């Protein structure tokens, strides 16, 4: 699939990463700002959606403001030959918002599977982490949950236009 992002795409990303204008014709407004045709802007955004450069377009809820304060990053050490299956299983759970394979850095960092777990509080997150541990069974060679204590910076992806 064509995943090449060109200079015009980058200008569109820069113009929309803080959100679309809440007006009846938001894409036409963005196009006017950039001196582009509205149809071109929509085609390019559709292409980025199809290629996966844009994950989704919609309302981005602030989970923290909604009371989901138990954002816990669970990290797991699973055997390399089982990580794909484990990742797909864990990633499909509805309380997991992100699930990634990342490198180990031995001896300081033994974990290779990351799953972001959401709940209303720590107890709920802990319960969900136990659920993941039960699913992984013997493939769970060790895990930890890292709770965030402070958000020091949170913005959408930033790309200079």
């Amino acid at each position, binding site marked *: 699939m064509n*995943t090449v*992002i060109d200079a015009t795409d*980058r200008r569109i*990303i820069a113009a*929309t*990463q*803080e*959100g*679309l204008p*809440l007006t*009846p*014709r*938001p*894409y036409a407004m963005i196009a006017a700002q950039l001196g582009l045709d*509205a149809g071109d*802007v*929509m*085609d390019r*955004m*559709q292409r*980025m*959606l199809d*290629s996966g*450069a*844009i*994950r*989704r*377009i*919609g*309302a*981005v*809820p*602030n989970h923290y403001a*909604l009371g989901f304060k138990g954002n816990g990053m669970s990290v797991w050490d699973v055997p390399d030959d089982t*990580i794909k299956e484990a*990742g*797909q299983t*864990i*990633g499909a759970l509805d309380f*997991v*918002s992100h*699930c*990634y*394979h*990342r*490198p180990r*850095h031995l001896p300081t960092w033994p974990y290779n599977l*990351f799953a972001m777990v*959401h709940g209303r509080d720590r107890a709920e997150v802990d319960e969900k982490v136990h659920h993941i541990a039960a699913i992984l069974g013997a493939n769970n060679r060790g895990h930890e949950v*890292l*709770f*965030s204590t402070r958000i*020091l*910076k*949170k*913005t*959408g*992806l*930033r*790309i200079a236009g």
Partner: protein
Amino acid sequence: MNTLEKRLLNDFQRDLSPSPTPFADMAEELGVTEEDVIGVLRTLTERGVVSRVGPVFRPQRCGASCLVAMTVPETRLEAVAELVSAFPEVNHNYEREHRFNLWFVITADTEDHLQALLQHIEWQTGLATLSLPMQAEYHIDLGFPLQWD
């Protein structure tokens, strides 16, 4: 939160496809007016319940990106966090309860630029960085099911 607010939040995390009039499309599906949809989205954004209404980009498809962890002495945490957050390339920065207590995401246009930024942070702080780039993604973030009581 009223029913329309809940429905907009829960059902429209991913359905704002490029269309000349996306909010009118949503309104039609919900059986309300375009003004209602825009009004509620404005209110939710102003209240901070919605961070924004728009595209969610996938960092690695738009350049180089890396999750980075650092072990920062407690007394220096605020200063180091401030230094890190000051880079426009840093888009998330969290304090977490762990020996690795500072976690952030760096996104740059190229891998070289990313490595240069990491080196810069190490020089300026005198602290090591742990690079954890994504190797595979098992979940495409299509929104988050919100369970209302």
